[in-house]
């Protein structure tokens, strides 16, 4: 079909890595919007600038989020991109699919959209790239019938995501897939109807390796851990020695707290339980010989986000250890209290981490009812600027 030349994009069909241009071209063969996209993108490559208008606010009935409105600033030239909205579908926990479910998505998207997707968006959603205002509602209706629902956008709970966890990983300290699914379903209202100062992201990682990068990428990061002692299988240790692993160098010397002692003579490895900070390093290197302890749960961290505006924040510990059980009631209750506090105290477009930074951890902890513990900080304050409460001073 396409007669238009795209010399720059053509360059990106060369090379060994699979090409997104080839993908757009495939879609363009069937869909005029995708075809226009090739032209528009080539134009951007020439001019070194984007051609999408600012903002856009479209959606489906009953929801306040889940769709990103998008219009080109060159509708005359690229009429099929006059409306080119994105639909965010909530992925299943752990990004597992049957081919059947994926094909269903493809079929619906072929009907209502450009045929282009992102698997996945950076928050975790299935991103369906490019449809018209008119098609949004019918597309949603069919996705809904097929068992899919929208993800988050706007100042709401964003689509939670989780690592592969117990489905395929020996390190998982709690059931990340179940927790993610459960929490997502519990907070459908918060996910679909924006009501807060800004967005709020939750990510679930089964251990401190943090394979969802939750500590940097989510307001609430839930990282699996254990309270007792990691378990060492001495036979497996000996097997590693025989394979030639330098246990002292590759494991003990790299343990951040030097909690591991290797006995050369006996080929035995022992841990000083109270020194271990459960960083996962030794377990990573020797998964056959070392495993997490048995009293498992998660550490809850709060406040992660990227650079805009007040600098990037890494999430920090607010609950050192929480059991992930009883339908996650403890976690749900905590989240509700946090949101209530944030909603009451946050400014527009202020992430929870920024609100706490502005108002202080002390106030946050007191008002949310969390007990202060040294695990919340790397180190105590370096200044003596303590706020005293009315009931603590002598009248």
């Amino acid at each position, binding site marked *: 079909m396409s007669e238009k030349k795209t010399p720059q994009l053509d360059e990106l069909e060369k090379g060994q890595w699979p090409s997104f241009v080839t993908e757009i071209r495939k879609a363009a063969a069937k869909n005029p919007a995708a075809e226009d996209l090739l032209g528009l993108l080539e134009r951007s490559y020439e001019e070194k600038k984007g051609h999408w208008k600012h*903002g*856009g606010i479209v*959606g489906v*009935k009953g929801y306040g989020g889940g769709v990103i409105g998008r219009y080109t600033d060159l509708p005359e030239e690229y009429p099929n991109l006059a409306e080119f909205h994105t639909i965010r579908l909530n992925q299943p926990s752990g990004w597992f699919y049957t081919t059947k479910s994926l094909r269903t998505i493809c079929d619906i998207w072929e009907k209502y959209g450009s045929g282009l997707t992102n698997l996945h968006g950076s928050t975790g959603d299935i991103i369906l790239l490019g449809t018209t205002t008119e098609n949004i509602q019918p597309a949603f209706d069919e996705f809904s019938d097929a068992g899919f629902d929208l993800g988050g956008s*706007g100042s709401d709970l964003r689509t939670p995501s989780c690592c592969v966890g117990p489905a395929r990983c020996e390190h998982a300290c709690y059931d990340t897939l179940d927790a993610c699914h459960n929490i997502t379903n519990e907070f459908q209202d918060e996910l679909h109807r924006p*009501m807060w100062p800004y*967005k709020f992201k939750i990510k679930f990682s089964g251990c401190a390796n943090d394979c969802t990068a939750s500590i940097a990428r989510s307001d609430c990061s839930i990282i699996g851990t254990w309270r007792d002692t990691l378990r060492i299988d001495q036979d497996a240790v000996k097997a590693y020695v025989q394979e030639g692993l330098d246990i002292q160098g590759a494991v003990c010397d790299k343990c951040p707290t030097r909690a591991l002692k290797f006995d050369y003579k006996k080929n035995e490895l022992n841990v000083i339980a109270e020194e271990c900070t459960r960083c996962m390093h030794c377990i990573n290197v020797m998964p056959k010989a070392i495993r997490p302890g048995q009293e498992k749960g998660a550490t809850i961290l709060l406040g992660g986000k990227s650079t805009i505006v007040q600098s990037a924040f890494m999430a920090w510990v607010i609950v050192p250890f929480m059991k992930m059980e009883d339908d996650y009631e403890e976690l749900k209750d905590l989240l509700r209290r946090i949101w209530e506090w944030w909603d009451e105290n946050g400014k527009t477009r202020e992430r929870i981490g920024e609100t706490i930074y502005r108002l202080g951890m002390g106030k946050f902890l007191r008002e949310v009812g969390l007990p202060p513990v040294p695990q919340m900080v790397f180190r105590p304050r370096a200044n003596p600027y303590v706020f005293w409460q009315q009931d603590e001073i002598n009248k």
Partner: protein
Amino acid sequence: MADLNVNGQVIALDEDGFLEDAGVWNEEVALALAATEDVSELTEDHWKVINYLRNYYEQFGVAPMIRKLCKETGYDLKKIYELFPSGPAKGACKIAGLLKPTGCV
């Protein structure tokens, strides 16, 4: 999006169906906008929300945060979505003739 025809007067809308010129808003325009957002009639409840939004905007130059809207009107979010199926931003603000909410999506 197509322009709006209110009693013969053609009123310009942007792609998202918001008023191009907020100055032309009046109650009839509101009614016409409501129709575009699946709101068939504007009840007292609707007007309470609309008036609150307009007053707040007039006073502070910004739309209120949702929590404030709910607190001050006494309607919870569920009720707001019942009144305005596309929600406070796309629905209520549009009908109230406020600016298109920008920012966080």
